[in-house]
């Protein structure tokens, strides 16, 4: 009986601990409105090299609660769906090597789809103009329609509207704002804390059900 209580407390603390981590790591900036759908890619930089430090992957903009924003992160707003990015490989989708000598569109597009990690020129991270150039460069591809770096400080003042155009020319407006307080749910996506919590909680109940089942 004592060992069962001990296991229960241990599992409970693991659930609470992982949930707490999820809450504390959750980013307060989130998508609040959109009038269309497409994909948003995330590439985060925080070192001096030309490689993204991590890519947060792709989210369907309709899945509002999955979208959170981090500072120093470039956001690639893209037309398309899981079938273009591959439902099984959301993290294989990155921006292409910035190689102006490469004119082979299909090759470059394949690099776009499969390269990891992609090479990002320094100026992409520092100069707004270069960011625009990258955006134009990528417009030749089927998937990326707009790239923008969003400064999290902007969100502290007012909601930020991002407009991009789909391949068919329709404008998609996304409105982001600072949620002002950490949210539980966004961390669900980035940290997996609630996934872990759910698994542990289920395992705990399962173990008790089995234990109960054993009794004569």
């Amino acid at each position: 009986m004592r060992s069962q209580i001990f296991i229960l407390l241990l599992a409970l603390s693991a659930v609470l601990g992982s949930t707490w981590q999820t809450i504390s790591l959750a980013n307060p900036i989130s998508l609040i409105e959109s009038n269309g759908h497409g994909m948003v890619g995330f590439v985060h930089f925080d070192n001096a090299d030309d490689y993204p430090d991590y890519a947060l992957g792709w989210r369907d903009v309709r899945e509002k609660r999955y979208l959170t924003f981090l500072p120093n992160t470039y956001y690639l707003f893209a037309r398309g769906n899981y079938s273009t990015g591959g439902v099984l490989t959301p993290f294989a989708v990155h921006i292409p090597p910035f190689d102006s000598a490469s004119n082979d569109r299909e090759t470059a597009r394949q690099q776009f789809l499969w390269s990891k990690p992609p090479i990002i020129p320094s100026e992409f991270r520092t100069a707004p103009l270069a960011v625009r150039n990258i955006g134009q460069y990528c417009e030749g591809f089927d998937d990326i329609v707009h790239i923008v770096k969003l400064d999290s400080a902007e969100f502290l003042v007012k909601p930020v509207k991002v407009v991009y155009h789909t391949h068919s020319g329709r404008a998609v407006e996304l409105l982001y704002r600072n949620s002002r307080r950490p949210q539980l749910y966004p961390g669900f996506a980035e940290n997996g804390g609630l996934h872990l919590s759910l698994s542990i909680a289920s395992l705990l109940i399962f173990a008790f059900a089995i234990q109960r089942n054993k009794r004569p």
Partner: protein
Amino acid sequence: VTYFFWLALSIVIEAPILWMGLRQPLLRTLLYAVLINGITHPMAWWFVEFRGANLWPVEVIVAVVETVLIWLAFKVTVRRALVWSVAANVTSAGAGLLVSIFHY
């Protein structure tokens, strides 16, 4: 569509398969189907969706883990647990893929 939709879809598909295959009481099968999916599905989802892991190796691991859980829960032979775990997981993974293709 939230994550919980996919979890529910997985349970709705796998529970009847386990019930028909293992021939255990309905309520008991449903309870364990929820718990077993509750254990494996969140982590599998997290690895595939957010860490870029390939679906099929993850599905194999899930099937093996669920075999053990089914064996523990229903006290059937390991072979029987393996057969119905694989059947349930192949069906739910296939259905999930189909839904995602049509949905997106």
